């Protein structure tokens, strides 16, 4: 009986030793989780932005602590210590996200402000450039008539009988394009005129084709087609007598009629 008792005691002791060995890992995990949690709970920012996860980390840790006093619970202790640390890591991520969200809002405001400032600066410079261009156009070739502001492009644009633009015309058309871009509310009517040589019907056709060529270049460059009217008047409305070569040259022309800055265009000529 005595021997049996000793044997049982020995067996129990061995079992307890085994338990302790398993307990060593669990105790380490528990200590790690405990120190993690202490740091977490001391972090006011994390506590404020992810309170639920912090609470869960604490609950899991408490469970691990409770279980650690039971015999043979090493696996459970390690399990709940792991869960506690995971909740802690998730809480930290959530806290980071909240802080980043705040920073994002601040930066978005800053960006919006800067974009606004840039828009205003650009607008200002466009206005300055636009009035400069208007002055240029006024001084160069436009004159106010009862038809509105009219710019006359002499026969520098086309060769006789042709509807294709000469290369030297590009500079003038580009200027026109620039003006229309900077004055988006203005529209134009492009009117073609010829001298009186050749059949009248063909002249109407040719003058229209020439005006259309100028319009096409502007549309190609990006001006909306609805801002451009095209009209061919043929040999009507001559500027000078067709008797002389000089007079005929004056009559071969394209005229650009500008609307006012409300987009109001004078009616076509009768």
């Amino acid at each position, binding site marked *: 009986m005595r021997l049996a008792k000793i044997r049982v005691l020995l067996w129990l002791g061995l079992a307890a030793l085994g338990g302790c060995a398993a307990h060593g890992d669990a105790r380490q995990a528990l200590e790690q989780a405990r120190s993690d949690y202490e740091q977490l709970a001391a972090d006011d920012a994390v506590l404020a932005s992810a309170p639920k996860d912090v609470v869960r980390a604490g609950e899991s840790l408490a469970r691990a602590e409770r279980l650690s006093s039971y015999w043979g619970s090493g*696996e459970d202790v390690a399990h709940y210590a792991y869960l506690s640390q995971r909740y802690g890591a998730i809480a930290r991520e959530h806290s980071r996200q909240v802080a980043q*969200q705040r920073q994002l809002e601040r930066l978005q405001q800053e960006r919006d402000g*800067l974009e606004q400032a840039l828009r205003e*600066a650009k607008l200002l410079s466009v206005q300055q450039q636009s009035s400069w261009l208007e002055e240029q156009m006024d001084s160069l070739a436009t004159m106010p008539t009862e038809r509105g502001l009219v710019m006359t492009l002499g026969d520098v644009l086309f060769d006789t009988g042709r509807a294709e633009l000469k290369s030297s015309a590009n500079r003038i058309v580009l200027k026109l394009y620039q003006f229309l871009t900077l004055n988006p509310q203005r529209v134009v009517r492009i009117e073609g005129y010829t001298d009186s040589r050749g059949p009248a019907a063909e002249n109407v056709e040719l003058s229209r084709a020439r005006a259309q060529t100028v319009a096409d270049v502007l549309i190609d460059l990006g001006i909306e087609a609805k801002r451009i009217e095209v009209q061919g008047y043929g040999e009507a409305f001559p500027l000078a007598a067709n008797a002389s070569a000089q007079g005929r040259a004056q009559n071969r022309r394209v005229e650009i009629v500008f609307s006012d800055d409300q987009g109001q265009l004078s009616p076509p000529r009768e």
Partner: protein
Amino acid sequence: MTLRLCAVLALSLLAGCASDPAPTAQLQLTEEALQQAHAVGADAEQEDLRVAEAGLAAAREAFAREEYREARMFAERAELDARLVEARILTAKSSAQIAELKSRIRQLRTELGGRP
């Protein structure tokens, strides 16, 4: 004495078995957490995602063997693994947004500085 000890041990083992029902709800939670991680763009190459997925697979296997306690523990760990993956991805995303905004602001400042 020995008999009594055996009886206590047997009882405690029985109690251990009885307290572990099939962790069906937990498995579902874990699956949802993994889906969520995928939904925010978790990459199959990611080490921590693979860990979470391996945990779910181990939980399913234990469940099939009716080792419910083991299944529950695997599933609980995998759920939090997956939630952490998701949270890390979201943090990385907003970090990237912040970097992008900062560079846009720098660019705007340069543009504005270049103007009279």
